């Protein structure tokens, strides 16, 4: 049986490999991003010639210049693709990692902006990922902007969100607006619309998010699982069970 997480991993892998997007030669993955990290391993072990920089590895930390190096790499244009999420995400792809209510989060407080305000403008491609797909998260307008989805004319910006992957669907982003790309099994165009707080475009008929192929599943459950186990033990247990890869 295909796990929902496996389908999300495969969906992100498909976005990474999108031939219409700028090339992904170097992908960085932030901390606590099990599903994006697995998608990166999937494309790499599937044959894509790509460099992965995974943050907060216990072993083989790729950075020898400290925690600043990731941001310098991005500033130099050496990171092609990054992943971001948000406590709130709105229809302009703005991300709120601050909180709700008055600044700095008198309602719910989110963890803080991390590097999002910088990375979102500096990296050519960002894939947004948030498993929870509800009107609480996907809002008409975020309470506070940690990282801006679109920029005023004249602002130096290398790229915007490429897409938003949630537990219900995949949205594409054209630099201004989201458009429903596919719905996961069990969802429909209407069920997605009902749970989404922001407005977006949609085709007449919603496509289905494809299942991972048997080859992808074999990769995921074997070598990808093996590379994820040390960094994401709880995630691996939940998705792939107690057995070591």
């Amino acid at each position, binding site marked *: 049986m295909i796990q929902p997480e496996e389908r999300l991993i495969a969906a992100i892998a498909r976005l990474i490999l999108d031939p219409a997007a700028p090339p992904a030669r170097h992908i960085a993955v932030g901390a*606590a991003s099990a599903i994006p990290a697995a998608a990166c391993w999937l494309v790499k072990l599937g044959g894509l010639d790509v460099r992965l920089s995974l943050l*907060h590895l*216990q*072993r083989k*930390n790729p*950075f*020898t*210049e*400290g*925690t*600043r190096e990731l*941001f310098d790499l991005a*500033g130099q244009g050496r990171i092609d693709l990054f992943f971001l999420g948000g406590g709130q995400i709105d229809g302009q792809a703005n991300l709120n*990692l*601050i909180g709700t209510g008055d*600044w*700095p*989060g*008198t309602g719910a*407080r989110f*963890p*803080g*902006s*991390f*590097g*999002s*305000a*910088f*990375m*979102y*403008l*500096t990296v050519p491609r960002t894939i947004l990922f948030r498993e929870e797909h509800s009107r609480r998260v996907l809002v008409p307008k975020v309470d*506070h*902007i*940690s*990282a*801006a989805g*679109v*920029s*005023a004319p*004249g*602002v*130096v910006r290398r790229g915007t969100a490429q897409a938003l992957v949630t537990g219900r669907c995949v949205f594409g982003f054209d630099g201004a607006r989201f458009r429903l790309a596919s719905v996961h099994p069990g969802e429909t165009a209407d069920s997605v619309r009902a749970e989404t707080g922001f407005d977006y475009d949609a085709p007449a008929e919603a496509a289905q998010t494809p299942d991972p192929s048997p080859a992808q599943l074999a990769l995921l459950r074997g070598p990808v699982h093996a590379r994820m186990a040390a960094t994401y033990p*709880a995630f691996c247990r939940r998705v792939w069970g107690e057995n070591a890869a």
Partner: protein
Amino acid sequence: MAFVALADLAARVPDGALLAIPPDNSLTPAAFARALVRRGVRGLRLLGVPVSGYVCDLLIGAGCVASLQTSAVSIGETGLAPRFARALAAGTLQVTDATCPAIHTMLQAAEKGVPFMPLRGVLGSDLIAHRPDWKVVENPFASGDPILLLPALSPEVAAFHAVCADDEGNVYVGRRRELATIAHASQRTLVTVERHFPGSLLDDERMAAGTISGVYIEAVARAPRGAWPSGLLDEYEADAAHLTEYSKLARSDTGFADYLARYVTDAVA
């Protein structure tokens, strides 16, 4: 430079100091923070470089902190920082939000002795509206190109936990070079270490590359396993179970008081 006792190192932090601290898994000074709680320091203005974790939450919970500048607060896999959240909700903690590369950049400006440094990105973020100390200007080398300028930030005191120190006050941090920038930018740097290094860390090319010169270091104290419950490079791994226990206990006032009594107040280190 002589080694001092951990309690004496903690005594060197004045109440109200602007104190820079690296987060979990970045050589965080956990034993030192527990010594600060025992010393009863008050009114600290913490700076997370560039984010904050267990040490920050502990100091907030123990009533040591007046304000916090950081890019995020997150502990362990769950990310929950209960004492931070509670103090923020109670209005007893003033929080200034930043974004990771902005904190690095402000320290780099101080490291370089310049009053400001530019940073790309960030424009369009509401962070800027809440940072009257940050400025957006036109790039003087181009037209119609707004860019963010960040002021130099020189912490009064920096503290971190390194692997070892020699008698000259040189301290070894391996590839975690952000600690060097913190030390360069700060007026005073206090360091705990696992152990004493015999001889000079500058004599061995391999050790020297991961060493911060004693020129920046005011005092050093031995604190074996001093990053615990965080991990330390290839010395020991993080104690995830303890961090989970902390997050659980710290959800309530009584649980946090229990935690302090068991691991901090009555402990020797």
